[in-house]
């Protein structure tokens, strides 16, 4: 991985662009750089959106204009030039390759380590897929099963057309347009994303994943996800994938809103492995995400994340525990290597009675990276018997990296029970020695120890993710020994 530098990527993109015609006139349309009200209107028009949606975007834009970029996070990066970005580009045709032989060998090596099947490798690397394994047909079967249950799962741009009442009712209710700088920007210019609605009492029979949603052309720069679980329903949603994703967009500002109505449960798992920049910290994706869910009575929202990519991560999946007896969970592994910086954590806002939340955060820093946990546990005055348990453990590898914890704990109710624990440690020499004695080489031993350290979180991932995520940890920390 580390051999692959940004220049290589640049070179690769350049040559391929030339070779295969990256910008085909019919396929791709890109607006001129810059952002103003006209651009927002044009995006909305392009998407053929109803008036209320256009107004909503304009309102968000006006709010955004007045906001300042936040700088409180424990990360340093050159501020993006918001007028230097093109805010609309239709799904681009990626260069099609004829066989796996044409794919960058480093990328293949990573796929192999992750244990991704050959066919899937082709799909991920954008190689023309054989007709034998037709992912389209897989997706169609999926759609049929979901359709029978009444589950709506489609790009949000389609949902705005087909189910405007549902989208209008819920969009922006958890993350208002004025929530923060990046959320406002996203609200104004989001190009696409996913919409998911689970009807009353329905248990979604499969893990929903953007990965299988075939009509979506890669992740957008400003993605918008809205998941609504109606009363008594259940859904497990997977976002991202373990395969390294090389996106040419530097700034990513996504918004995810989860709404769990009475007795509903949403399990949201993310694996993020975006381009982290090269070993010298050049390039890489800025990932500024706003994720938040709201729980009504007896509802439960569980966030699980494995963050290994991106040069700068700024992400706080949160739960508003509004209803009585609602439950919020946050399980996170954040790995930073080389010059990566991550400032991530969660917010648990206890408003209802008997609400419970659990936070397990594992930070692993290696190389010259900085890894911060920033979390808030808030217990409102009326949240009787609120219960929180937080545990933030950091593992440091080498003495050039840093691990930081910034937990905020606010309790306004005497019956609240809050526990917060944090530890920082390194991989013990005796642990390594023990493994070495038994014929396990140091690199493998570290992988073993890291896996053990992260086990509590890995266990929470859906099966297919867990296996890959485990390997991903190994790969991310490769070469960080000694």
């Amino acid at each position, binding site marked *: 991985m580390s051999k692959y530098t940004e220049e290589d990527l640049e070179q690769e993109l350049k040559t391929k662009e030339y070779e295969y015609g990256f910008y085909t006139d019919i396929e791709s349309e890109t607006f001129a750089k810059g952002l103003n009200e006209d651009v927002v209107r044009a995006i909305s028009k392009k998407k053929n959106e109803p008036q209320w949606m256009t107004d909503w975007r304009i309102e968000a834009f006006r709010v955004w204009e007045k906001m300042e970029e936040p700088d409180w996070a424990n990360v340093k990066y050159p501020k993006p030039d918001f007028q230097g970005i093109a805010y609309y580009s239709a799904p681009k045709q990626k260069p099609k390759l004829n066989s796996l032989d044409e794919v960058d060998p480093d990328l293949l090596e990573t796929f192999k380590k992750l244990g991704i099947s050959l066919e899937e490798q082709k799909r991920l690397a954008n190689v023309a897929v054989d007709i034998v394994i037709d992912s389209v047909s897989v997706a169609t079967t999926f759609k049929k099963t979901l359709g029978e249950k009444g589950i709506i799962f489609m790009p949000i741009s389609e949902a705005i057309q087909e189910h405007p009442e549902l989208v209008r009712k819920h969009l922006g209710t958890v993350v208002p347009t004025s929530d923060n700088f990046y959320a406002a920007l996203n609200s104004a210019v989001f190009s696409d994303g996913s919409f998911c609605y689970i009807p009353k009492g329905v248990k979604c029979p499969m893990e929903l994943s953007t990965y299988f949603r075939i009509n979506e052309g890669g992740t957008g720069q400003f993605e918008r996800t809205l998941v609504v679980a109606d009363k008594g329903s259940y859904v497990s949603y997977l976002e991202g994938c373990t395969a390294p994703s090389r996106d040419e967009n530097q700034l990513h500002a996504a918004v995810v809103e989860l709404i769990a109505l009475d007795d509903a449960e949403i399990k949201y798992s993310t694996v993020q492995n975006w381009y982290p920049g090269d070993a010298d910290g050049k390039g890489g994706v800025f990932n500024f995400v706003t994720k938040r869910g709201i729980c009504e009575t007896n509802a439960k929202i569980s966030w699980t994340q494995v963050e290994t990519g991106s040069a700068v991560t700024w992400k706080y999946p949160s739960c508003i525990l509004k209803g009585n007896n609602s439950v919020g969970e946050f399980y996170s592994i954040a790995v930073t290597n080389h010059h990566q910086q991550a400032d991530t954590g969660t917010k648990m806002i206890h408003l209802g009675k008997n609400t419970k939340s659990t936070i397990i955060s594992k930070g692993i820093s290696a190389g010259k990276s900085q890894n911060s946990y920033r979390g808030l546990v808030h217990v409102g005055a009326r949240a009787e018997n609120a219960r929180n348990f937080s545990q933030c453990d950091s593992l440091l590898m080498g*003495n050039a990296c840093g691990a930081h914890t910034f937990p*905020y*704990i606010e*309790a306004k109710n005497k019956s609240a*029970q809050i526990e*917060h624990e944090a530890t920082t440690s390194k991989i013990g020499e005796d642990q390594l020695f023990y493994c070495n004695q038994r014929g396990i080489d140091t690199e493998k031993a570290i992988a073993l120890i890291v896996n053990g350290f992260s086990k509590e979180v890995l266990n929470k991932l859906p099966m297919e993710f867990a296996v890959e995520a485990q390997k991903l940890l190994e790969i991310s920390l490769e070469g960080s020994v000694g």
Partner: protein
Amino acid sequence: MTKVKMELKEKIVASYVAFENDVDINSEIHDIRTEAFQNFEKLGFPTKKLEAWKYTSLNSVLKNDFSIFPNKENAIEFADVKKYFIHDIDTYKVVFIDGKYSSFLSDTTHDGKDVCLMSSALSKPKYKSVIKKYFNKIAKQDNLTSLNTAFTNEGAYIYIPKNVEVEKPIQIINFTTGNDVATMIQPRNLVVVEENAHVQIIERHQSLTDNAVLTNSVTEIFSAKNATVDYYKIQNDKDNASLVDNTFIEQKTNSVVSVHTFSFGGNITRNNLNFYQRGEHIDSILKGITIIEGKQHVDHHTLVHHIEPNCESHQDYKGIFDARSTGVFNGKVIVEKEAQKTNAYQQNNNVLVSDKATINAKPQLEIFADDVKCSHGCTIGQLDEDALFYMQQRGIPKKEGKALLMYAFANTVLESVKIPEVKQRINKLIATKLGVHIGFDL
């Protein structure tokens, strides 16, 4: 609100000229004052917009029309204030009334050590080298510390030479009498403890008036190699008195410094306690008990900066909050890259007794070294109902039972108090706070 705040700031700025008439403006110290003054002029009073003041607002205090220099000398009878002293043991005493030294109530010394006044240390040539070496060397350049530095004139000056073990504790007490006006005082203390020396200090701020009082105190403590400093802060002021207590401590190799802060009263109390470890095998101990009620507000802001390897720090803060009181704990531990084998421990436990009480905690760790043991724990909870029931079953009334549980809760802090008389005094204070009579010594 902002307008009101401007007024006090303007008043302070305007009175600086008057202050300059009273002090030697040709001394080197005055350059430090002037620089700090300009700094304060630029920064103004802290607002809630600052991360460090997120949970504590001084607005309600700052709107008082404070008199900055009490213009008359006030005398008080010892009998009236005896109860504020630890009077059952012999101690050195440095006592101030409205910011002015009271020779009548004090008991200072120059016998083999200096326990005297900042004003004389600043003006007399024989102290010049110490002042030059230590004064304002570790105090932060933030707003309130700068304000104090700008008006530096009086306070306690303690210098303990090499190998001297001070035979009895030193008490530093600041009384405010402002009977007609709201009073603001800014004591400035300097404590230098040389190699192998040992000292115990008890500090107290006490208001004797019903008018508003604002104390903005700065203490710098330097602990040389192998030195031991034992510092106790007793804060049990009246409801109209607010305190911003800034303490900066620099430690050298093998030194042990412990600071115990007992906050039982006052209006708004803000403790900024900063430890800088410049040497190896240092031990820093920060402990505190907070028991407050009414609308009282206590904010503990601690910083332990681990700069060199093989050092330790231990923090243990307990809080019990009743009525509408608010507590804040912001503990920050920084471990630098070079500070390998650091062992930093932080514990903060809180009990909310009333529905209207609030606690905001922010235990922070910033770690840049890999071979360290750092942990922090923070809890918010209630007294164990089962334990209470058990005691009631056995004939211990609920009130006493509760008090017993709270004692047990706070005991880990009391345990390490080394002066028995101070421990007893704290015991009594806790008993009074909890409204019970405790018939045993802890």
